[in-house]
């Protein structure tokens, strides 16, 4: 502050010292006021909107699932909706189906993205073009990917037609009970997202560390196993959690490419809400999805705290 005042005194024509001091005091007070309450005032619009947009639906789902959000039948506290959801084998299958899609998609996406990232660590002609191409799915909606996959590997798709000419039988990959078609479309979007995060994580690893290891005689494999892999684990697992949450709650792709039975949980939930107007049941499913998400997130933070200690040790 003293430097400030001195500099300002030099830069301007000298003002009456009294006025100067009052101005300075006002400015300092203003800055202090801004630092205290101004920051909160500025935070309010965005953070307030998000807080409302998170609290309202969760409250609605919470109250709705126990029959307290009064739709038609009147408000009465009951756990009927949960009883319906837990007793229905269709709901159990939907939950397991969504869970399996999410786990399989997450594992495949992370594995593929990690492999691609490793390939991209080599210098080869066309490397930049590949990185650019890999970003295309980031801006292309999953629905377009669904169309592309449907016309490529679906029954009557490009590959099926080519296989026919080669005299081969093309397997059913869309509307299949294993959800393979769904996984493929979800991967179209999740692999580049994961790849981008993995690249950022690897780029943040100090180059000196790698050079030092190589100078000390470590070969490429050792550098990868002992330095890159351990340092990449936290970032890559964060990407995996994001992929899991995204795919566990996926609606559009399973609704188009899923089998008639089992349906994905979000598809069941949307049907209950939009077509049957069973708010209580839809709310109960929504809470189950939310609780699963929170469980995965807290498990992640628990495990991450562990890896931090391992790396430090």
């Amino acid at each position, binding site marked *: 502050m003293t430097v400030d005042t001195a*500099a*300002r005194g030099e*830069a301007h024509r000298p003002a009456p010292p009294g006025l100067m001091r009052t101005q300075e005091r006002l*400015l300092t007070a*203003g800055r202090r006021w801004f630092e205290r309450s*101004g*920051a909160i005032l*500025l*935070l309010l*619009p*965005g*953070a307030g909107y*998000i807080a409302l*947009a*998170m609290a*309202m*639906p*969760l*409250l*609605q*789902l919470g109250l709705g699932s126990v029959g307290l959000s009064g739709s038609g039948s009147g408000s009465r506290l009951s756990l009927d909706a949960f009883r319906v959801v837990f007793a229905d084998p269709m709901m159990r299958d939907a939950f397991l189906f969504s869970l399996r899609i999410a786990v399989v998609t997450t594992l495949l996406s992370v594995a593929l993205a990690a492999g691609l990232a490793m390939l991209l*660590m*080599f*210098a*080869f*002609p*066309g*490397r930049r073009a590949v990185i650019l191409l890999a*970003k*295309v799915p*980031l*801006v292309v*909606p*999953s*629905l*377009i990917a669904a*169309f*592309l996959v449907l*016309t490529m590997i679906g029954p009557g798709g*490009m590959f*099926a*037609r080519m296989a026919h*000419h080669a005299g081969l039988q093309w397997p059913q990959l869309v509307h299949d009970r294993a959800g393979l078609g769904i996984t493929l479309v979800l991967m179209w979007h999740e692999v580049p997202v994961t790849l981008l*995060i993995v*690249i950022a994580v690897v*780029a943040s690893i100090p180059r000196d560390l790698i050079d030092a290891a190589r100078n000390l005689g470590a070969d490429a494999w050792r550098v990868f196993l002992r330095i890159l892999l351990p340092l990449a684990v936290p970032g890559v697992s964060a990407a995996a959690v*994001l992929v899991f949450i995204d795919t566990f709650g996926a*609606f*559009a792709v399973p*609704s*188009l490419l899923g089998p008639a039975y089992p349906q994905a949980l*979000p598809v069941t*939930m*949307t049907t209950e*809400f939009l077509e049957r107007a069973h*708010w209580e049941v839809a709310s109960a499913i*929504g809470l189950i*999805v939310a609780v699963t*998400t929170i469980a995965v*997130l807290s498990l992640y933070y628990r495990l991450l705290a562990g890896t931090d200690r391992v790396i430090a040790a």
Partner: protein
Amino acid sequence: MNPVWIIRGRFARSALGLAIVGVAALVFMLPIITAVLWSLVDPDVGWFPPDVVPASLSLANWDHMLAIPELLESLGRSLVIAVLVTLLCTVLGLPTGFSLGRGRARYMRVIEVLVLTPLMMPGIVLAVGLGAVFIRIGLSQTVLGVVLVQTAVILPVTIRIVAATARAIPGDLLDAARNLGAGSFAVGRHVVVPLLIPGILAAALLSFIGSLEEFLLSFVVGMPKVQTLPMLLWAYLGGRSAILSYAAVVALVLLVPALVVLAVVERFLKQEYLAAGFGKA
């Protein structure tokens, strides 16, 4: 990321490059060619297996989609919604992002996590929860309702980008301006705002494309009265009745703005914006 390893043999390097570029091109180009072919199928002849190429091509599907009001109406509605969402996100996200980027108070960590929560909760939970709230207060199946619900998931992206930009402004620059006699207002006007503009533009661009492509929340809140372009695509892909030729037309219309945005981002913007913006779509 710069390459870490160099392959010594010139032949091995070229072979690896050729293989990877070839596979990448196959994965991306073949589906797009197929989409174009589907949109050009002659409806009188059709395109039935096992033909690899349609027997006859025509622009009939394009003529049909442009003749019925559904496509252009959905496109117009999507654009209006995208503009409104972009404006709302900028107005709400600019002060918050700036404050989050520059603030050092302890509660900033909490706000940072709060801002991320819409990206950590599956969209379906927010969609049905907000959908039910909106039905009760009469915002369901209105353009305003769709704008508000999209803002909930796009605003975090805006805030993160603005915050990252504000954080990157060097404190020395602000001190220098103050030392040279600039008041708070002058510092804001001549130093902070010009440095924030690239971030604000990047955030606006990504909000716009995010809104244009958002499906789930718009679907639950807007159907059937407020139909956006992705909802039309969903309908033709089998949500209503599967008509692949019409779906191809809608998909290609939707693909153009996406690729334009990617080109602009690639050409003019720093790469961090894409990473911050597409953590989740």
